[in-house]
């Protein structure tokens, strides 16, 4: 391949793909076979991190940034005056294989602008994955974008070669979608997602009867929503997210703070800071739903439509539900331990193990790694020292903020001004 041409294309098409935040390379069970190249069965690996602190685990590129759509929030929209390029199928295959052999990446994440039609584009994406699997015996990770509107047959084929498929909803509300991407409709996003979901269920059933059933998208599906582009509330975002987790068995929903890329008056202007703190709070909420046993209604509801920026959502929940506390570390069940502010699931695991041998006191909790500056107001343990004052929520919040230093302090004062 010609080095200079590939170099130029790579620069353009990696730059255009970078707003997709998904970087995961985990969750697959594809092992190396016939002494081929690669293995995607282990947990994911971040091979490096960019200067914005994001994980680089896959070669994340667009096949092309030519696009027939004109979505306002998207950098490759038709009306944007930028350099356009397109990879040949073989070029993507060569790049992937050579990067993989040098241990730069876990695999390929291939997306694309939509040229000609949805099916025409999807066909090219599938062709790359097929070539990697069948001709190169490549067993690394492949993440393909499902193109909205692609036919069921193509989605079926895509899942046979890819580990993960994803469609980005991008805009959390239908109203927002109408405003920013008038040529797109929700149904087009849902269709390939529905098809993949059904195929995965089918695969799991058949697998039970016939062991040699070929794998179908073993790492499941994911999606992404842009945060802060269309004036949606945290509640709208998280309820949409919850809906997709529940109805499409998604592995992940990603939240991407909107990076201003256009002077379109419908959108935040260039120079507006990326809402990174808000993004972080959304991820924390997402984790509470998936790993900590919370229901979405407990965290966001009509009375609380947005997440606090100055404290994490679990602490926010605890302050609204002081009647559930204090919790006895030596007696409480796993569910309640997980609800104590300052305890992560690793601490919960360690506490459950350690308390089988002895009653735990403050020193034990500290060496286990519990964030006592938050937890101390909510727990009792094997010690006669504990918070005896009858503190109000506001008072506790004040004490915690006073005695802790957040990495977001600087950003917080900025963003509070913005939203306040």
């Amino acid at each position, binding site marked *: 391949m010609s080095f200079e041409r590939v170099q130029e294309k790579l*620069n353009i098409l990696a*730059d255009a793909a970078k707003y997709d935040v998904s970087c995961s390379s985990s969750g697959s069970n594809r092992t190396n076979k016939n*002494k081929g*190249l690669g293995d995607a069965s282990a947990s994911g690996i971040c091979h*490096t991190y960019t200067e*914005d*602190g994001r994980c680089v685990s896959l070669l994340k590129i667009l096949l092309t940034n030519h696009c027939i759509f004109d979505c306002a929030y998207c950098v490759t929209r038709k009306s944007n005056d930028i350099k356009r390029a397109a990879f040949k199928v073989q070029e993507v295959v060569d790049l992937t294989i050579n990067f993989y052999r040098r241990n730069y990446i876990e695999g390929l994440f291939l997306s694309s602008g939509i040229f000609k039609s949805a099916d025409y584009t999807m066909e090219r994406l599938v062709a790359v994955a097929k070539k990697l699997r069948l001709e190169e015996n490549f067993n690394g990770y492949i993440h393909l974008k499902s193109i909205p509107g692609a036919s069921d047959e193509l989605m079926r084929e895509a899942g046979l070669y890819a580990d993960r498929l994803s469609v980005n909803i991008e805009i959390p509300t239908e109203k927002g979608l109408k405003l920013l991407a008038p040529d797109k409709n929700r149904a087009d996003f849902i269709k390939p997602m529905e098809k993949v979901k059904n195929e995965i269920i089918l695969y799991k059933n058949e697998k039970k009867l016939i062991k040699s059933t070929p794998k179908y998208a073993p790492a499941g599906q994911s999606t992404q929503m842009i945060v802060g582009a269309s004036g949606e509330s945290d509640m709208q975002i998280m309820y949409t997210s919850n809906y997709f987790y529940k109805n499409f068995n998604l592995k992940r929903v990603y939240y991407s703070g909107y990076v201003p890329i256009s002077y379109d008056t419908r959108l935040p202007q260039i120079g507006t800071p990326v809402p990174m703190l808000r993004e972080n709070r959304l991820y924390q909420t997402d984790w509470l739903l998936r790993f900590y046993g919370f229901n979405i209604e407990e965290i966001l509801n009509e009375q609380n439509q947005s997440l606090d920026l100055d404290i994490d959502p679990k602490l926010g929940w605890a302050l609204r539900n002081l009647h559930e506390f204090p919790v006895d570390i030596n007696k409480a069940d796993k569910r309640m331990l997980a609800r104590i502010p300052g305890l992560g699931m690793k601490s919960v695991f360690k506490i459950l193990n350690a308390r089988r041998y002895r009653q735990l006191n403050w020193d034990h909790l500290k060496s286990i790694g519990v964030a006592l500056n938050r937890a101390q107001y909510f727990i009792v343990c094997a010690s006669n020292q504990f918070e005896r004052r009858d503190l109000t929520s506001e008072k506790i919040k004040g004490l915690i903020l006073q005695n802790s230093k957040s990495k977001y302090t600087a950003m917080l004062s900025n963003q509070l001004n913005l939203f306040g």
Partner: protein
Amino acid sequence: METTLVYDGTFDGFLTCVFTAYEMKLKAVSMVNEKLFQEPLFGTSEVIITEQEKANRVWAGLKKKMSSNELRRFYYAFLSENPTVETTLYQAILYVFASTKNVASDFGNVHILELSKLTKNVGREKHRMEAFVRFKLTKDVIYFANIAPDFNVLPLLKNHFEKRYADQKWLIYDLKRKYGIYYDLQTTELISLELDANFDPSKTSSAIFAPIELEFQQLWKDYFRSTNIKSRKNMKLHIQHVPKRYWKYLSEKQ
């Protein structure tokens, strides 16, 4: 009076020491790698010859007391080369053998907790090496990488790279500990290398490496730069994930 047992630095050597301590019913005992050994002012010392059979007996004894996951922690922690790791391990082993039930996950015990922390450090370094190894293609078609990990994790890497690169020859060399693992398409072996005095591990010399190697390094560097979002720049987080001491062998950070 304290007895110091001097061993050859291998894990089996350490386990042989544990066996000896039990056999001789030593009350006050410490174990030390022969490379770090200094004649003590007080107390006596004894050189222990590694015996596979004794080591196996200690290991088998531990195995009966805990799950294989918990057992693995003892080996991981040992590879940390921490100056007091022998004491931590020995104290944890005493505690395990003295208890009737499985106490290997009793994180309220200081030695068990310390052991789990060392394990975590070694596990993290292993994972980092799985991420940060950068192979360069040599003229004789071997994918070569040099590393200098904080802990002695090379023995833990074999499995991962064998499974992943089954169809290419590769060699990972630990510059700090002066040995490597080499896969020749059939098996993986420990090797030592005589590196040329002029060999600069952070450069890609055209005398050793294939011409195409520099092109792919350039593409990788370009990709690394293009995929960054400037308006989200966060160097603190970047350095937290990729600490500076690893930069010298990462082609994208050159």
